[in-house]
């Protein structure tokens, strides 16, 4: 402890000299210990990561076995799981469904989200009210949202059938047809997550500088031209964040599809996550399910790495670095 703690608190300036600490008494902390500080703070988080990564790598190792409920003492089969799955039509069908769902849903959410954000950015009274309501779907658990929509779409219970009939649609059958099942799955996903894109786009819009827009308005530029040449490029760094989150989430979306269609009818909405779930949990073929999952994981990981790198470049450029 420094001596100052013992020194009598000085009343007058002239006595101050007595209270300054002789440095010899100062506690010393070596450079090495100082350098260690951030690591010490991170140790718990690293341990936690290790605790999560261990099962992950265990899971990856299972892909080289023939592990299942019927075969609890598995043997190494090398790349056989990968070979059979990559050769199967089911896998490629699932992959197609996954991409179709993820890309369409992300596109729909982005377009709708930007639209809603533009509408809400006029800051009239109605906008303020709606902004509060906007996030409601986002806070509903996706599985519950799917169940709500499932009931809403049921011909004998839900309100969609009467609405469809009001507009003269005949032969409404909910999610019974393969095409409509996919369409509704995308709609439900968009119902939940459009607000996510919208609030991020809205935050972006509100942070844009005013002067370029005033200049464009003085120049008499049309709304569409201003949007295309000014708003969209300036909004892009924000939008990209939203798009990355949505695309990553939609590639692995489970709750919405499971709750709404469970992958049906047939395999019309069976994404890779659903396939993996069926393989691993329903049929208890763990190794096969994990192989599905590992392939999806690799896809998501690669895409996310590329997008995050791209995002950093865009943000650096936006920040003027």
């Amino acid at each position: 402890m420094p001596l100052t703690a013992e020194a009598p608190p000085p009343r007058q300036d002239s006595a101050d000299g007595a209270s300054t600490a002789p440095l010899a008494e100062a506690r010393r902390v070596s450079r090495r210990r100082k350098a260690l500080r951030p690591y010490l703070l991170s140790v718990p988080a690293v341990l936690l990561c290790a605790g999560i990564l261990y099962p992950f790598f265990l899971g990856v190792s299972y892909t080289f076995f023939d592990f299942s409920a019927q075969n609890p003492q598995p043997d190494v089969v090398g790349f056989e799981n990968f070979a059979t799955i990559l050769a199967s039509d089911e896998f490629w069908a699932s992959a197609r469904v996954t991409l179709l769902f993820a890309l369409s849903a992300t596109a729909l959410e982005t377009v709708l989200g930007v639209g809603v954000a533009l509408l809400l950015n006029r800051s009239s009274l109605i906008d303020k009210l709606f902004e509060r309501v906007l996030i409601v779907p986002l806070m509903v658990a996706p599985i519950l949202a799917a169940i709500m929509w499932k009931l809403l779409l049921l011909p004998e219970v839900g309100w969609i059938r009467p609405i469809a009939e009001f507009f003269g649609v005949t032969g409404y059958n909910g999610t019974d047809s393969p095409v409509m099942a996919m369409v509704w799955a995308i709609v439900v996903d968009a119902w939940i997550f459009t607000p996510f894109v919208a609030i991020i786009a809205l935050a972006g819009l509100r942070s844009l500088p005013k002067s370029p827009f005033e200049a464009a308005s003085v120049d008499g530029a049309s709304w569409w031209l201003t949007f295309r040449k000014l708003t969209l490029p300036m909004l892009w760094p924000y939008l990209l964040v939203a798009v990355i989150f949505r695309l990553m989430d939609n590639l692995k979306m489970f709750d919405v599809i499971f709750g709404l269609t469970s992958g049906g009818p047939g395999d019309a909405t069976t994404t890779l996550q659903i396939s993996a779930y069926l393989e691993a949990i329903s049929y208890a073929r763990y190794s096969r399910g994990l192989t599905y999952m590992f392939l999806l994981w690799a896809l998501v990981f690669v895409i996310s790495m590329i997008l995050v790198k791209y995002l950093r470049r865009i943000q650096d450029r936006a920040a003027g670095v």
Partner: protein
Amino acid sequence: MATIDVRSVRKKFGKLVALDDVSFSVNDGEFFCLLGPSGAGKTTTLKSIAGLVQPDSGEVWLAGQDAGDIEPNHRNLAMCFESYALYPQHNVFDNMASPLRSPVLRLPDDQVRERVGRTAEMLGVAHLLDRGVDQLSNGQRQRVALGRVLVRPANAYLLDEPLSHLDAKLRTSMRAELKRIAHGDLMTTTVYVTHDYVEALSLADRIGVIKEGRILQVGTPQQVWDTPETAFVAQAFGKPRISFVSGGLVSDNGTIRFISSDGAITVPVPHVEAAAGEPVRIGIRPRDLTLYTGAGPQPAGHERLDGVVYVLEHLGRQTEVTVRIGESLVSVVAPRNDVGGLTVDDKVSLLLDPARVHVFGDSDSDDGRRLSR
């Protein structure tokens, strides 16, 4: 109170070299000014002394011992940050009381009140003690930040541009106040960072001029003014700035003369430490020149330079006259009366005492090292 020794400190931030072999020492009770343009490494130097920046190499010694392993909170230094660094959740009083209540001092409440009150009074912020930091102007924030330093006894005060955000009048009075504190009965060792040469000259016992992470010169105000070690140091002091003329040295019957590149200016420079033929530049301070109107005899020992008026700029009772001599521009400050009816392109003559001419090398690689004795 303590001495401060900065020994060959180097610091890089990524690729940027912030400090490049910085060395200087500050004596016990001395008021030391670190003068330099922004980005010169002044703040980094201050933070190295405080222990907030870990030097890549080199050492900081406090009170005669290596402070490398001493934590900032045990160095007993008080620092005033250029960004103020006031605690936004506390009011002015609590901000200023913070060091007094810290485990290092832990003064009783009545003494905290007494000291904070006295310091606030001195800095003219006594009426603001109950205010939140966000309710203050920048000038008030800066005074509170300074108060947080002056309120406490310390081994040394580290002040980073503590007057930069005050208005001109307040700055002058605060400067006087600081001088009183610094040279009064307290005599706390102080390192004062500034980019304002007037502050440095008026406050400092000694000045260190820093540029691009390197100390160019350390000396008393008299030394850095009279014998600037480099052209940069010469330029750092004085307004209007020192005028530079590039040219070469020639030997003329044993005495060495300076001749400007275009031959229009020639001055004997007997005290130079360089051989004839070397490219040099001379520096002439505007106040070392006098305007020669032709009336009266030309004083002995003075050189006469003839040129034409290029620009006239009135500075109150004085006028800065920029005179074009050949292709060189030389500034002179003259009493307004002497300038009288002068207008642009009028012919004028300047008188110069050769002893007051500064000679510097003319290469940028050595910042224009001083060549005159």
